[in-house]
């Protein structure tokens, strides 16, 4: 033991133990029937074992609490708790004991001691106990620095320190995806769907107590992680609310701009702040952890100056038969009037009917025009409509629109029935 020698130098011994949650003792039930060779021996032994649950001895998980067996892992967002005990190993009374516990992280030094006042005296075989807590907010190396200063009976002032180093690890891996839904007829941007993939990168199962999205000012959020069946909602993850190590879960949120922002939304371009994820999890016996992501940002879909949207399109058309679509062309720029020329380029399957290169006329800012177009497909199957080009003659700038929509092209003579 280290301290055996140390105490020759020092009258006090400092011991530190991390207090993770205690664990429930598990016993190893092996049962047998009475007619088996061991007879009732196994069950009798289990009954006598104090750690079994009386009346249900073969339950593996008992009720006996055991103290943490090792330091374990500590993860960002969890609380680091530690027992600090200063014990007087000597035969003499020690005076003016000051125990100081600091936590040194990569960025700062925190004082964790409950009290900073000195203890007047400590009798032999007595302890000064302290339990410290700290919510871990940084990743990486942490060093718990415990300093003890005291005065011996002879008046000598002594001081020693101990260092306890531990690593704080990342508990979760979070990935997000944004989906911009564009609903009919309405404003330029509205709903945004956020998919958050949360992966448990610890080594133990994790109960996800809360995964919520705290939206920024501009948005209202709806969580889409429950399926309402009857009166009660059921989680999309089923009954099991925990996440095994390395498992990933997808959470889905729908964000709607608040009305007061919705009007401006068309104008909002580029990066918008969506909000942040707030995650609370628990592990063994309620050991709690909590993290928030930084503000999630998304790039609003860039519509540029001219936006082309579809107002009308059939979903199924006949092969080599003309069909109509209606496009809506919006001048999204704030103050510039455009003079647009429409070109239509055929692709291998889609053929535009009509004159390419025709003038659409002037389009003032924030106004739009509807443009009926005719085209036909020469190939069966799901065909993508591509090949529209708009050129702003003022700026000599060309906007290309491909893959605008899909239509299903069927052969009328050999319909789906045959």
């Amino acid at each position, binding site marked *: 033991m280290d301290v*055996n020698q140390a105490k020759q130098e020092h009258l006090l011994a400092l011991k530190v133990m991390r207090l993770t949650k*205690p*664990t429930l003792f598990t016993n190893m039930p092996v049962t047998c029937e009475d*007619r088996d060779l061991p007879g009732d021996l196994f069950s009798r*032994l289990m009954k006598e074992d104090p750690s079994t649950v009386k009346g249900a001895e073969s339950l593996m998980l008992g009720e*006996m609490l055991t103290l943490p067996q090792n*330091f374990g892992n500590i993860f960002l967002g969890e609380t680091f708790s530690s027992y600090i005990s200063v014990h007087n190993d000597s035969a003499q009374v020690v005076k003016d004991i000051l125990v100081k516990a600091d936590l040194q992280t990569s960025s700062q030094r925190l004082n964790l001691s409950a009290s900073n006042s000195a203890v007047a005296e400590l009798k032999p075989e007595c302890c000064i106990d302290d339990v410290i807590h700290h919510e871990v907010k940084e990743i990486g190396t942490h060093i718990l620095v415990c300093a003890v200063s005291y005065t011996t009976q002879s008046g000598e002032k002594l001081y020693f320190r101990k260092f306890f180093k531990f690593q704080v690890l990342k508990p979760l891996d979070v990935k997000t995806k944004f989906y911009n839904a564009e609903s009919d007829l309405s404003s330029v941007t509205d709903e945004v769907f956020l998919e958050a993939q949360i992966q448990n990168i610890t080594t133990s199962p994790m109960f996800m107590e809360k995964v919520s999205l705290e939206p920024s000012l501009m948005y209202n959020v709806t969580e889409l992680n429950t399926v309402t069946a009857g009166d009660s909602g059921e989680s999309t993850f089923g009954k099991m609310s925990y996440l095994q190590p390395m498992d990933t879960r997808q959470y889905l949120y729908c964000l709607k701009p608040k009305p007061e922002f919705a009007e401006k939304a068309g104008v909002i371009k580029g990066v918008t702040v969506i909000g942040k994820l707030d995650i609370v999890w628990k592990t063994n016996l309620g050991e709690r952890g909590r993290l928030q992501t930084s503000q999630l940002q998304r790039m609003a879909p860039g519509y*540029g100056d001219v936006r082309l949207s579809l107002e009308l*399109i059939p979903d199924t058309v006949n092969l080599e038969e003309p069909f109509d679509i209606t496009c809506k062309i919006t001048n999204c720029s704030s103050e510039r009037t455009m003079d647009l020329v429409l070109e239509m380029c055929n692709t291998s399957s889609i053929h535009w009917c009509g004159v390419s290169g025709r003038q659409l006329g002037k389009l003032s800012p924030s106004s739009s025009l509807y443009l009926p177009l005719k085209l036909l497909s020469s190939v069966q199957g799901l065909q993508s409509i591509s090949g529209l080009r708009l050129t702003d003659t003022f700026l000599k700038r060309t906007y*290309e629109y491909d893959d605008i929509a899909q239509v299903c092209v069927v052969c009328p003579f050999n319909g789906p029935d045959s």
Partner: protein
Amino acid sequence: MESHESQTPRPMSLDIVGDTGNNQSGDPALSEVSSAQPPEVVFQEENIDLDGEAFITPQDDSSSDNMLDKLNDQMMESVMISDSPNNSEDDTGHMESLLEQFEDGEDSEPKESECAEEMEEKAMVSPKITVEAPPPALEDEAADEEQQVSAMEREVEYAKPPEDTPSPRSTELQEPFDANKVTPKEEAIPVCTIFSQGNQQRAPGQALAPDGFQPALVKSPSFSSGVEASSRLAPLVCQPSPSLSKFFTDNGHVNPASDFFDSFTTSSSFISVSNPNAESMLPAGVAESQPSPTAVSPPAPHTTPQKPTTPSLLTAPPAPESLAQPGSAGTTLQPAFSQLQAVFSGSDDPFATALNMSEADRRYDAWLPSEETRKVLISVATQQHSPVFVERDRLSMPGLRFDNLQGDAVKDLMLRFLGEQASLKRQVFTASSVEQSFAGLQQLISTKNWRAAVDLTGRLLTAHGQGYGKSGQPTTHTADSLQLWFVRLALLTKLGLFQNAELEFEAFGNLDQPDLYYEYYPTAYPGRRGSVVPFSMRVLHADLPQYLGKPQESLDRLHSMKTVCQRILDNLEQGTAEDGSMISVTQENRQASIQLWRSQMYNSIVQHEPERKAQLLSGIGRIFLQIGDIKTAEKYFQEVEKACQAKGDGQNPDTYVLMNRAFVHLSQNSYSEAHVSFSEVLKIDPKNPVANNNAAVCLLYLGRLKESLGQLEGLVQRDPTLYLHESVLFNLTTMYELESSRSTQKKQALLEAVACREGDSFNAQCLKLVSS
């Protein structure tokens, strides 16, 4: 971190579009100049890096900028420089001692459990105030190392016993064991001549017989086969295994049996391939059969009973069982019957016993083989006179897979810490110090000398021809040999020697080989049907993988067991035969302690066993607590409360409620309230060991180490039978380590207390003496 403008179309996103906006068929997003084709739904993916900057704990929002700045390592150094203001004051004076202290720590690692590693303070030695930050890389390594070390230690602990044991033990054993001529060493060696002299002596005292090797009549081919020369005579003296008997008697004919024992087909190889000890084995068989209580008749008469049809023979296997465990068999299903049996067990009315037993047998042995196995069994049954050909790989060919593991960790520790003198005081049963029989085995089990018991099963199995090195050789099974296997594997499991258990289980496959059914042995077990493998062994087999980190496999096995049980039940309900001990089935399933399914299984069990509702529901609740799902746990606990209220009477139920409350408090970090609840339990039931221990644990979390320690110490001293349990001792030693520098002495005191009470299966690790 910024969303990249990935407007490249992705099929995935398009699919999603289908739902939301097919009708409106989206407006294409415009991308200037580029040829990219914007899908309706812009798909972005970003990887949030969860480092300090990205992930801030809630309270810390404001300081995020701050952290951003400081995240680099250089900063850490500079911060470290400003390290403790007072370090200069004493560096000179006490640094050496600190260093020393640390180095000691390195050597002995006294508290792997207590704390992260102590950091070396070498950097501090330099009187300069600018202290370099400790090189992180190095320390990481150190940290890793230490972790590994502790892990290693554990492993070593497990691994040790087998190695340790032979040396001290074997010598010791030799003496008593001479009688049996099975020294552990020899036993371990595949080629063993041990039985050449040994068996005659073994016979008298060793009732392998009680139910044991009486059916040693059924011998594994591996050893009786060697007896070719004498085998012609053998049947007169001893019943060979059915298949063998056929083999021998039918020898002249064209015989598929020769295919069966492919290794023995030619007579030359017959002798050489089979074990050299085979010759001696036969006498062993003879000897064993003699003392069996049922076989009161001298060996010779055995020849006649070999004709299985006589009722007297029917009794042969079962009767001894009832001797071994008077009155115990069949209690669950037929209490009345067990009395009957008790009466008959000693009596001379074999006929009645036969009837009773076969009834019970049928009930317990019932098992449904797989289709393939069933075919084999049918062909065995129908082709009585020409043994069927069964491929080798369809047979279970078990054998011991490792040498003796016997050893006594407690004694080793005593030797190490208390000296030889003290260690001599440690007296426990060993495999040699008990009867070499089932009775001896039971004695070892009940005195918690499971390691010795495992050794004994090894010896008994060796006697049966399934010893070390015999795996992979065809053999025959008897009800007793499989019971031995079950006990052995069960004990290995209980001892936490899962790998060993798995290794030895391997030969049994999925416990569905044809030779594991009674039908396979029409001669030895005429008319008996069903599984030779005890149901408990199937459960054990299913449970085992979960301890080895393969819960899914456990689940699969349990489910397939459940399916069979369900089919048996269905058969029963339809009024046909084949019944299973369903009561135990559900019980067993309870052990299926894989979190995923636990709750569901338990739930159904709750319905089966209403009288244990409170315990079971609490158990489910605790499982959820352990996972961290407090809400769900509370739901179950509420049901417990309801159930207790419904019962309404007696104090007992209240303890469940209080316990559960305590656990909930605990998981909400309110240790003081948890302590109150545990204390309330103690008011009702002052001797409740769990509540006592748990209350002490709570005290520690409240910073009241001395009280906690006092409480536990008091408990252990007052009532050692109850509190010398590994969990309590573990807590106690942990607190010793935390409390004082003299923990080793205190632990040694505990060791002494343990030494005079506990058997060799005691988990000495909980004393935490080894690491120092």
